[in-house]
């Protein structure tokens, strides 16, 4: 596997997963808020929300390892008017900052619920902008044909929502399992169980849908590269061999098979047992995360520039 860009692989995947998870949590809140009490929803979503922070921070720390001279890091925002990389840093820090503020607000119940919702909304928008800006860093390099394609933003957003939803699913199950253990293995209350079931069904459906999107992007991207010839065709050569197959298998197994299982088990949460559900949700997340990390490493490996 191509690990020369490990800091960038970790940073981009972690940041996209964070944005995705944040947005998915928002959707859960909005959708579930109509059916369930705010307390019930927040009890489940907040744990996941607090988990995003460390992931995003990990990503930002990883990105520092990409810098040849971290002492000059503050300079990277100086070219905001021209450089997508400057914009990435601004939006990355913006998303992390707003997310942190929102998490604090949730924890301490600052302001009204409405205000916090507005804050969450702004954070989500900044996060989505971050993913877009990230993709533009690569997309705008017309000297790298493998990046200078619609597939770059498409892939970045697919990663965002695929990993985001599965991360939320896994976090929900983690939070439930933890709560059950502290409660001495007591049964879930009715509304929590229903909320969980609904959310996991959504996660399963979302994962299968994003898998579909990814499995459209990948072959189209490869065939476009091959057809373009030159440096692009050289890039296409990356998408073969063990690592490429491993990536497809991992993502397919995680998002496809387990997504379907998740959807079906979630429908019968009580019968199947929460434990089984937790295993399925966590496995799906881990497999897809591994697949996406390999995929991202290949994203960097395909970098073949035109010229000399």
């Amino acid at each position, binding site marked *: 596997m191509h690990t*020369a*860009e490990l800091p960038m692989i970790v940073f981009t995947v972690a940041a996209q997963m964070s944005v995705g998870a944040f947005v998915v949590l928002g959707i859960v809140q909005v959708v579930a808020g109509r059916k369930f009490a705010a307390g019930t929803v927040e009890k489940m979503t907040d744990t996941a929300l607090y988990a995003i922070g460390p992931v995003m921070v990990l990503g930002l720390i990883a990105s520092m390892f990409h810098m040849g001279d971290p002492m000059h890091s503050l300079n990277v925002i100086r070219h905001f008017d021209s450089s997508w990389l400057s914009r990435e840093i601004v939006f990355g820090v913006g998303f992390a900052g707003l997310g942190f503020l929102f998490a604090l607000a949730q924890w301490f119940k600052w302001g009204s619920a409405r205000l916090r919702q507005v804050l969450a909304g702004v954070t989500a928008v900044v996060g989505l902008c971050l993913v877009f800006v990230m993709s533009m860093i690569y997309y705008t390099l017309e000297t790298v044909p493998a990046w200078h394609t619609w597939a770059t933003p498409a892939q970045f957003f697919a990663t965002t929502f695929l990993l985001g939803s599965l991360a939320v699913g896994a976090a929900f199950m983690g939070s439930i399992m933890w709560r059950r253990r502290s409660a001495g293995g007591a049964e879930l209350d009715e509304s929590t169980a229903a909320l969980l079931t609904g959310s996991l069904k959504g996660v399963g459906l979302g994962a299968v849908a994003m898998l579909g999107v990814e499995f459209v992007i990948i072959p189209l991207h490869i065939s476009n590269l091959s057809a373009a010839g030159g440096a692009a065709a050289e890039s296409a050569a990356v998408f073969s061999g063990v690592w490429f197959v491993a990536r497809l298998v991992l993502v397919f197994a995680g998002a496809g098979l387990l997504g379907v299982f998740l959807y079906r088990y979630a429908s019968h949460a009580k019968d199947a047992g929460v434990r089984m559900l937790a295993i399925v949700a966590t496995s799906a997340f881990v497999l897809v995360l591994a697949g996406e990390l390999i995929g991202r490493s290949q994203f960097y490996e395909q*970098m*073949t*520039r035109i010229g*000399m």
Partner: protein
Amino acid sequence: MTAVGMTETPPTIGMPRRSFLKWSGAAGGGAALVGAGASFGIPGVGAANAAAASPITGADSVAWNSCWVNCQSRCPLRFHVKDGTIVRVETDDAGDDELGSQQIRACVRGRSMRQRIYNADRLKAPMKRVGPRGAGEFEEITWDEAFDTIAAELERIIAEHGNEAVYLNSGTGTNGGAIGSRSSVRRFLNCLGGYLLSYGTYSTGAIQIAAPYTYGTSPSTNTFDDAVNSQLVVLWGNNPLETRMGGEAFVIQKAKQMSSTKFIVVDPRYSDTASTVGDEWVALHPGTDAALVAGMAHVMITEDLVDQEFLDTYCVGYDEEHMPEGIPAGNSYKSYILGTGPDGVVKTPAWASQITGVTSAQIISVARQIAGAKPCAISQGWGAQRQMNGENSARAVFMLALLTGNVGIPGGGTGDRETTYNFKVAGFPELKNPVGTSISICMWTDAVERGPEMTKLRDGVRGKDKLDTGIKFLFNYAGNTIVNQHMDANRTSKLLQDESLLEFILVIDNQMTASAKFADILLPDVSNVEQRDLTAGGSTGDLGYVIYADKAIEPLFDSKPIYEILTELAKRLGVEEEFTEGKTQDEWIDELIEATRKDTPAIPPNEEFRAAGVYRQNNPAGHVIPLKAFRDDPVANPLKTPSGKIEIFSKQIWDIAHTWELPEGQRITALPEHIVGAEGVEEARTNEKYPLQCIGHHYKSRTHSTYGNVPWLQEAHPQMVWINPADARERGIENDDVVQVFNDRGRIELVARVTPRIMPGVLSVPQGAWYRPDKDGLDRGGSINTLTSWNTTPLAKATTAHTNLVQVEKA
């Protein structure tokens, strides 16, 4: 493309300040050990006194010197020195971009000189061997111990075996200096009663011996400047754009630009000469030059394109009417070509095409072009003659110039290598060698192995019917010819393990070369910038020059100039007075400069010359045109051949062919015939084990093996084997794959350059990479001489380094 994250940690240079400080400290220590004998303290001499300082580098001084290795060019370099350390190397800054007044710019090699001077492989102190020969295990000793040991060994071996047992090995790491060169060693050994001589060179072994049979001398051919007078230029295996990239490359490129003359390049590789000045490429199988010439000669003869008047007037042996006495009928060149000679084979283009790989159509076309161009300049490089049939290849190429009557005229030539103009630069008197015996230069390992068995008629021993002793003392100065630049490194390496044969190996060098590892005693020489010298110019067409080779820095570490080393040895062997005549190196240089000025008074006196660095002088005759006097009046100016004429058929060779004893399969012919020999293309076509011919072109990053350890050059021109895409595909090899090339003599590992620039069926491993066998004998340095053999050509006993059959596979 630079892969992100591929940057390596910089070696030697790139951390200039810190490491240079360390170096200068070491240099200072070394300087203190320089004895009073080599007094550099005379007024006005030494880097500190140099006039020109550079405001840009912040250098204290700038000293002129040169890149003095064995590429035939010799490019001036200017060394910027700060605090006793060279901080920058620039080239000539005088002159312009016009032929005759050109700036003599150094090529990539000279420009990397700083990394050769400050190389991690620099030898730092005298050492003696403590492991097996070649293992490179040494222990530092004092200079006194070293001198005493060497003197004692020399004395003992001369007493026991005679002076014939002492041999000065080939080596061109210091080529061009008057004192800091092999001249000093020859003089020293001559003071001791002489040493076993050698004839020929590894470069020119066959042509150097063959040419005089045809021309009476090695005539060379017109300078490249003279190409402006040609209608057609044929560069036959001649590759100045890769081998003589400093002085000579500019000359031929400029002449081409000025004249827009057509150039035809004959070479198994699409060389950089072919890609720049070449207009047509003839790709032939290595070793088939004589066949290709014969096919062309057939066209010229049958189409009546030959210059009959020239052949009748100036040559013998062309047709039956002009043969030496006593030779049976049917032995003329014309009979050979037309199939009326002993072999009965008509040398048609079709016949030649089957041997050479060149199509009949191209053979006919090129023959007509050569015959039709009046005048036509044909020159040959030295690759073709480093083949089993080397003498005949060389003489065959002469035939093209002879058949077309191009010898001795402007725009024409002899078919030999191009010459250069130079004026006399005084050298260090080498004195006379009382031992008159000599062997072929590349047979020294034979002389180690079986010296007393070597005879005149079988092994080409000269000056004596047979050797009386094998070589017992090897004096190896500034050379990597013990293993690296001598053939069959593995066989040589094994031979040298037997200390009863070669009893003592002395190596004096400034780098830990592959050969230095075989030393019994290893002494650190200085580089040329650590001593003052005088050096003649190199191959630069009709521009002659001489360089004031100034001392730029003090000797590094505990190294000493060769003159001082030899003086110490001479002292111990009782010949100091004969050797030094009571003079220091500086006093000798002053004398040599004055002697040179006597011949060429326009050279400025010492200090002015020192500041100017280079004195140049154009050829007063315009272009050098060898054999012009003979062409103008062959009766008044006969050649040094027995007939006084050009001998196409050589009666001398005819006699040799009838008296010498040759190994099976070898033949000597009085005419330049194509001979099917061992490991030639004919054998390649039927040899399933080793179906590929392997040659070893000269590489841009090295002059032979010199500069082979310079990181900048290793990066710029990494060692590689050229292979045609068709041959690569059959073996699953892709560009930049690591491969192994091998035959029964050895195996090397290196990177493959899959390129259409080499003909199918032929590999080329650039010669000179440093031999680096691992514990299993796999040469990871990729030295061509791991694959070459000790086989010699029949007449000159010259190297056959380009006649090898091999196989290649992915590593």
